[in-house]
């Protein structure tokens, strides 16, 4: 112990300012830690504040009507309503979740309960890589491969069989809300699958053993014990996936067709909140126009806050229940 103390004495500067900093370094160190922490917290507040301030023109001009009117006319009337984009975002996110939930929960069950050990790690890694593929590459692939090979035939089939419903009314386009939704489904897979896998793995083994000992088959154990037990965590995973689907921008902009009309057909091109910002932000010629686009950003930010709050609460509740028995 003496040796250690001597060493640190030796390496300390002898005189002057350096010595003083050395002796009182803890104060400076704590200050730096707190400054960095405050920076992160203030950043969130600053984003909200900036979006609120910069959208003032549009908020004052249109009020709540902004959310429920569908005129988007920067050229003549200078009137803006975000309804088509809000609907577009809801529609694409719904398609994405409908596609992604069964597949990603199914694969989470496989990864957590069924896969042999040697397969677990590599497969989990592939799912992580899926999350790492840049959004613009998804868009490129979606535009030139996914749409012609998969989306358009699906759309044509839906239109032929169910075309009498307004939801599947023709004519069939390649780039469409359906295309954006189906591409988003792939993009939210890894989010939902990875979190669900962790949720399932955190369920104590005693639950599994009890179910199996009562004579349940493996599937009965999963469906009647594990899924209800992990329900709030799984819901949290789905909400996180929803968050990604709502905010996804560039891939959606590339495959949704960018069309202002308010139609209810999934097979028609449309817009989402994120994609109208991406497409028109640099072209916004008037202050009101820009302010309206920023207000759409503000709505997205508010949704992000709510979604994160809910998802964390659910996952946290789940984690608290399994505390002490976490199997990892």
């Amino acid at each position, binding site marked *: 112990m003496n040796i250690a103390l001597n060493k640190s004495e030796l390496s300390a500067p002898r005189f002057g300012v350096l010595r003083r900093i050395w002796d009182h370094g803890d104060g400076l160190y704590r200050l730096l830690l707190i400054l*960095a922490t405050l920076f992160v917290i203030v*950043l969130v507040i600053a984003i909200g504040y900036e979006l609120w301030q910069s959208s003032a023109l549009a908020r004052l001009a249109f009020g709540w009507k902004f959310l429920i009117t569908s005129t988007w006319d920067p050229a003549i009337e200078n009137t803006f309503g975000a309804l088509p984009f809000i609907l577009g975002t809801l529609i694409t996110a719904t398609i994405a979740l409908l596609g992604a939930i069964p597949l990603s929960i199914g694969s989470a069950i496989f990864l957590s309960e069924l896969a042999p050990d040697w397969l677990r790690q590599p497969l989990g890694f592939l799912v992580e890589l*899926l999350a790492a593929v840049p959004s613009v590459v998804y868009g490129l692939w979606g535009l030139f491969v996914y749409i012609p090979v998969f989306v358009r035939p699906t759309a044509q089939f839906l239109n032929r069989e169910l075309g009498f419903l307004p939801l599947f009314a023709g004519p069939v386009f390649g780039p469409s809300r359906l295309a954006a939704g189906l591409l988003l489904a792939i993009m939210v897979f890894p989010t939902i699958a990875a979190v669900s896998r962790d949720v399932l793995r955190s369920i104590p083994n005693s639950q599994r053993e009890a179910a199996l000992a009562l004579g349940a088959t493996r599937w009965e154990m999963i469906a009647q014990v594990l899924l209800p037990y992990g329900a709030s965590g799984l819901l949290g995973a789905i909400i996180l996936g929803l968050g990604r689907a709502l905010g996804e921008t560039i891939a959606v902009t590339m495959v949704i067709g960018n069309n202002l009309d308010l139609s209810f057909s999934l097979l028609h091109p449309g817009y989402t909140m994120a994609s109208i910002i991406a497409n028109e932000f*640099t072209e916004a010629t008037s202050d009101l126009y820009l302010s309206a686009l920023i207000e759409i950003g503000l709505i997205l930010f508010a949704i*992000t806050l709510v979604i994160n709050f809910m998802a964390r609460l659910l996952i946290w509740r789940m984690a608290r229940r399994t505390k002490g028995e976490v199997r990892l």
Partner: protein
Amino acid sequence: MIQAAPRRLQRRKLTNLFMLSLCILATLLVVTPLLWIIGYVIQQGLPAINISFFTQLPTPVGVPGGGIANALVGSAMTVGLGLLIAVPIGALAGIYAATHSETSLGIALRFSTDVISGVPSIVMGIFAYTIIVLPQRHFSAFSGGVVLAFIMLPTLIRTTEEMIHLVPKSLHEGSLALGAAEWKTSLSIIIPAAANGILTGVMLAIARAAGEAAPMLFTAFGNPFFNLDFRQPVATLPHTIFVYAIAPYDDWHAKAWATALVLISFVLLLNILARLITWWRMHHIGTYH
């Protein structure tokens, strides 16, 4: 009743088999797009890749040749600036999160980190636009770097925090017990021990930031020329892919695929390396116990 039991058991077993098979099928379906995308990008992108693709500037439509030198430089500039800003803040905030997780500031930090990681990158772009581009009245590589720094922060904070949790508490306490100051303990014990973790975080953050196209639309903006000035707009790899992909020229589509190949190789390589480091780290720590 007695005869019904075996039949019922058989049905339950069949359901079991059927549902478990569906889970396997789901896993296959989830992994398919990844292989499909990577395979297709390689197939389409490889023919257009050669040395001059990396060294030349873009040519106008119809003029053969041309490359993405401007975008490579622009991506390096914006991601590099982002790192310079985000790494010190992220590492310090990560240390705070790991050592003060129960304080109210620590809880606020965790919530803020979650929110930032959930904010759509396009909204981050708007934020950078209003605080930097609008007052300066022009698009710039600087604003692109700042927005990437914000996007990198959550990844850096979380990986730093997780890796510090892995450092045995006895090392920390031992250093303090020997009379070392708190900052000296952090500098000479915790940070070296967590260095691999911070490195992993840096690599994942680079991989994430390098692929962001949406916030670049109105910060770095794009630039067909070679530029090293942080006050001027620059092209970036993902933005170049976007511009080339939505244009109506076959030649540009080919270049979009080639650029995508460059980007996806870089991003996946970083992710694989980060994974290897984490794996090595776990393995290494495992031998302590």
